[in-house]
């Protein structure tokens, strides 16, 4: 069964510090992974998808099939990065399985 695990409920870092939000998955097949973000009082939105190999707002995520991980990283956190982050895996019928989420708090 497809599953996504985000081990940290809350991650607090200071502005300018590196940040890594962890995501591990289980999937029988070739996984397609995503990060979604929800800023305060805004709707959930796509941040990035692994297949695009893109950097969005300074965030990157590399799919590591050996470790079954898709950690989200940013070298220098900004206060505006404070949000709820969800890792998600794509399944059939265009379904996604979401992790439990990590709240990132970037302190000034």
């Amino acid at each position, binding site marked *: 069964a497809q599953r996504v695990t985000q081990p940290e409920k809350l991650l607090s870092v200071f502005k300018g510090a590196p940040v890594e939000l962890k995501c591990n998955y289980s999937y029988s097949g070739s996984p397609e992974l995503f990060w979604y973000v929800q800023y305060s009082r805004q709707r959930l*939105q*796509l941040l990035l998808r692994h297949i695009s190999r893109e950097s969005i707002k300074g965030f990157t995520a590399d799919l590591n099939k050996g470790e079954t991980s898709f950690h989200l990283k940013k070298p220098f956190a900004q206060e505006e990065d404070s949000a709820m982050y969800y890792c998600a895996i*794509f399944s059939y*019928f265009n379904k996604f399985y979401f992790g439990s989420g990590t709240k990132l708090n970037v302190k000034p």
Partner: protein
Amino acid sequence: DVKVTQSSRYLVKRTGEKVFLECVQDMDHENMFWYRQDPGLGLRLIYFSYDVKMKEKGDIPEGYSVSREKKERFSLILESASTNQTSMYLCASSSSRPPRLANNEQFFGPGTRLTVL
């Protein structure tokens, strides 16, 4: 601009009431989804639909039903609301069009916070 709208931002109902949550998308998307979002549990899929009049159960369908009579509208129904259905409900939609399904992101509505007393 992409738009998924939900009929209410906040809703307060009593135990045993029948509750309707409405979702409308204007992007001509084939797929629509209902999730509930709870702290520490993330998003859990209740039901989804990949075509008009089609529906599939998600991970937690018990106590819920859905209706999709038109492509743009997907309704979530709580036949007899209970206190454990107090939650944030999110609707989403996505396209099934080529070139690649997995690139088709889900677009979310603003959510409906339902409180069942």
